[in-house]
């Protein structure tokens, strides 16, 4: 059913020196990083993409898929909705680091990089990254460092740019000493630099000419695909055609040019049932089943179905406001920690297809605490919960106010709630429910106008935001969404800040774990419950689709092909 990922063969072959460390924890992957070389750290050079083990790839064919909502534009500076899904196909990043396998780098526009004194990143711009043919009047030239400069100029001057948060907090300076060299200097060592500044959400680099044009509904770059003129509809679909100028080749297939797929057709199908119908009828090539039972049903309907299982880098959490009673009491927060039977959510909601979370969710294996350690830090113990409530000076049951959306489209949100309410009743809490319509709940959650709430779920591909929820000013560092236990214990903020300050992945992973242990000792106010397994199924004709890399990294891969 599932095949072994071929991707691990890549990049590591090109690293001349490395330090390999074993990391414990569920699903852990080995960590490796190029060692120091002279005064800085040279990153591995990239350039080619591997073939796969599904046979000899053939060019051609149209891959059809569907999105479930609006694009939110295809503007590389501001798009946060579905747009980033194709921005990685249209544009380029410098170097993208897989957040879930930190030793895996994707070298795109930069063939090499060097890190000097942990804050200066020197990128060597790869020659031959050529802009696609287009009707926008942009010359089919190679991208160079001036495009990188223009890109950062645009971000730093646009109030609505997604990456502006990074540039405001972390970026010190940038310049282009030569057309083939681009330099960025951070204000301090930043562990998530490669992910943050190279993610499709705000981190892709358009040609500088595009920055002078309307990028909301059109665009051309040097990526693997080019947006078809007039095909993009904000509330509809989009078509992309293969970029004939794309620079990458497949070294496992005699350096054949990639992408193999000629065309991507993306339609919008909001409802699940028509999406499923379209997949079974062969109108689209991928679909997202909700449960393993649905996957098994589809396997019976479609022989040779490709099934992909990936951990969902998302979770729902219980959020407490530590500036309000009784959540300002450590023991009460600890009581909540022990009142949660996280395994029950896994068993009931996803029928066991998932695992419980610590403060960093289990899919981020390098950073998550082991199940054994979690058992000591957050054991389910409703009697202990009651005891802690009483030790805190409250009588049982302890009445607490709790807001939640009465109905929500957030995946599994509605299913978490009844389990939560039942567990709290058994553990000494009496929940005073305040059910709100979703948008009103979102407003109050955003402005931290609550005592306690379920959280939004969102995709957390690094541990950064997980931990930021525990800092005094919350995940956005400005008091929105949540206030962390750092409001009560400044050392928590210090530990979180320290965990971001190492660019050595081994050291950094340990700092992240130390920060979690400290937070547990203080009584966390943000408790992720569980993460589940996401399923994607693809038609049998789809070959060589990358596996196990995480959503963000997968977007950059272009060696899939269609056996039509």
């Amino acid at each position, binding site marked *: 059913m599932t095949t072994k990922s071929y991707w691990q063969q890549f990049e590591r072959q090109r690293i001349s020196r490395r330090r390999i460390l074993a990391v414990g924890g569920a699903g852990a992957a080995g960590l490796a990083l190029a060692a120091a070389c002279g005064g800085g750290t040279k990153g591995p050079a990239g350039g080619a993409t591997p073939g796969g083990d599904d046979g000899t790839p053939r060019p051609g064919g149209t891959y*059809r898929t*569907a999105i479930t909502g*609006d*694009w*939110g*534009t295809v503007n590389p500076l501001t798009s*946060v*909705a579905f747009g980033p899904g194709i921005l990685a196909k249209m544009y380029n990043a410098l170097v993208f680091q897989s957040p879930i396998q930190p030793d895996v780098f994707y070298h795109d526009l930069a063939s090499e990089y060097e890190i000097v004194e942990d804050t200066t990143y020197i990128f060597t711009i790869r020659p031959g990254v050529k802009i696609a043919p287009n009707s926008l009047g942009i010359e089919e030239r190679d991208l160079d460092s001036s495009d990188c400069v223009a890109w950062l100029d645009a971000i730093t001057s646009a*109030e*609505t*740019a*997604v990456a*502006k*948060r990074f540039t*405001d907090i972390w970026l010190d300076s940038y310049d282009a000493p030569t057309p083939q060299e681009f330099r960025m200097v951070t204000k301090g060592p930043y562990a998530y630099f490669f992910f943050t500044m190279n993610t499709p959400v705000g981190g892709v680099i358009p040609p500088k000419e595009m920055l002078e044009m*309307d990028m*909301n*509904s059109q665009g051309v770059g040097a990526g693997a695909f080019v947006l078809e003129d007039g095909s993009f*509809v*904000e*509330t*509809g*679909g989009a078509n992309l055609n293969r970029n004939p100028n794309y620079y990458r080749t497949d070294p496992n297939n005699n350096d054949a040019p990639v992408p193999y797929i000629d065309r991507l*057709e993306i*339609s*919008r*199908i*909001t*409802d699940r*049932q*028509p*999406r499923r*119908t*379209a997949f*079974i*009828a062969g*109108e*689209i090539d991928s679909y997202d089943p909700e449960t393993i039972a649905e996957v098994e049903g589809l396997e019976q309907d479609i022989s040779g179905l490709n099934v992909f299982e990936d951990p969902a880098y998302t979770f729902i959490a219980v959020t407490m406001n530590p500036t309000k009673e009784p959540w300002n009491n450590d023991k009460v927060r600890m009581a909540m920690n022990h009142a949660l039977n996280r395994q029950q959510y896994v068993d009931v909601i996803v029928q066991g297809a998932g695992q419980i979370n610590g403060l960093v969710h289990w899919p981020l294996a390098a950073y998550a605490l082991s199940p054994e350690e979690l058992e000591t830090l957050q054991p389910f113990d409703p009697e202990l919960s009651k005891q802690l409530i009483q030790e805190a000076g409250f009588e049982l049951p302890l009445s607490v106010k709790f807001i939640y959306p009465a109905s929500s489209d957030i995946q599994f949100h509605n299913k978490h709630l009844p389990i939560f309410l039942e567990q709290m009743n058994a553990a000494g809490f009496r929940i005073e429910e305040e059910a*709100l*319509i*979703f*948008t*009103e709940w*979102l*407003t109050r959650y*955003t402005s931290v106008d609550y005592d306690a709430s379920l959280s*939004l779920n*969102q995709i957390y591909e690094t541990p950064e*935001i997980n931990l930021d929820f525990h800092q005094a000013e919350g*995940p*956005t*560092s*400005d*008091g*929105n*969404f949540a206030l962390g236990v750092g409001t009560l214990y400044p050392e928590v903020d210090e530990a979180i800040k320290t965990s971001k300050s190492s660019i050595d992945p081994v050291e950094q992973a340990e700092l992240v774990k130390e920060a979690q242990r400290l937070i547990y000792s203080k009584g966390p106010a943000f408790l992720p419950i569980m993460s589940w397994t996401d399923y994607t199924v693809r038609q049998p004709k789809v070959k060589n689709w990358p596996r196990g890399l995480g959503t963000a990294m997968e977007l950059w891969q272009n060696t899939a092909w269609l056996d039509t």
Partner: protein
Amino acid sequence: MGRYIVRRLLQAVVILFTLSIVVFILLRVAPGANPALVRCGLNCPKERLAALEEEMGLNGPLFPVSFSADAPIVDFHSDSQYGNWAQSLFDGSLGKDWNDNPVGAELQRRLPVTLELLIITTLLTVVVGVPFGIISAVARNSPADYLVRFSSVLALAIPNFWLGTLVLLIPQDQWGYAPPITTAVSFFDSPWDNLRQYVPPAAVLAAVSAASIMRLTRSSMLEVMRQDYIRTARSKGLREQRIIGRHAMKNALIPVATVLGLQVAGLFGGAIIVESIFNLPGVGIYTLGALLQKQYQVAQTLTLYIGAIVVLLNLFVDVMYAWLDPRIRYS
């Protein structure tokens, strides 16, 4: 009649103006998230949120005129949210959504989809509802009558979202069949695929409307068949078919025609559900999306647009009623 029409049109202007104010205010006072927050996405920093609010024009005055207790008591604003929206209606652009996409262009793309859906629905409603209503009336208390009446009650009772899901699910499950789902197929590009795509959702919508028309036709026919002139026609020796076709039907269908016109207006609401289930990119699903995402400009414009259609349809029905029944005269 001319004066009547002019008077109704003037009333329509007042109604639509009032509707515009009401929908404008309701969208802003309704509880829910700031539209800038919806657009900004999750983990949105305050600075970015503020910048988006400014870009989306959410910080400007609501109306062109405002009142305050302090001087100036009356203040005029050239750049108000309502004023900008009204201007976009009059200049034909119909405004833009938060991502700068023209509403007019979207309407142009989506209206043919909804119109075709409604036309086919109306045709099915008439083709199914009227004949079966007549049969039911003529063969009163017969097995055919009972069957037709039972079917109509069943159709009225079944929710159309459930019916629509079954219409999609059963053929797919049993025969591996599905209509085109990913994109809207134009009739001129492929008539067969177009009909495959539109007839099932139209049939789902028509189930309820046909049932209503069926019942109305039946009762209307029964009433007409009891009239003296029908008895006279029979006593003159006319064949039953001629009596029904020439004399009864014409008069029985007058109320049916007027109700049908009003039903079309109501179909806009039902279209949202079937457009969603069958993935038809029509006006209904566009409106729903705009409301959910707090797309003020889009929601306001579409609500006003649909309101205008309803008002004009009502006028059309009233005028047609007078044309169908010469006894009706409007002063």
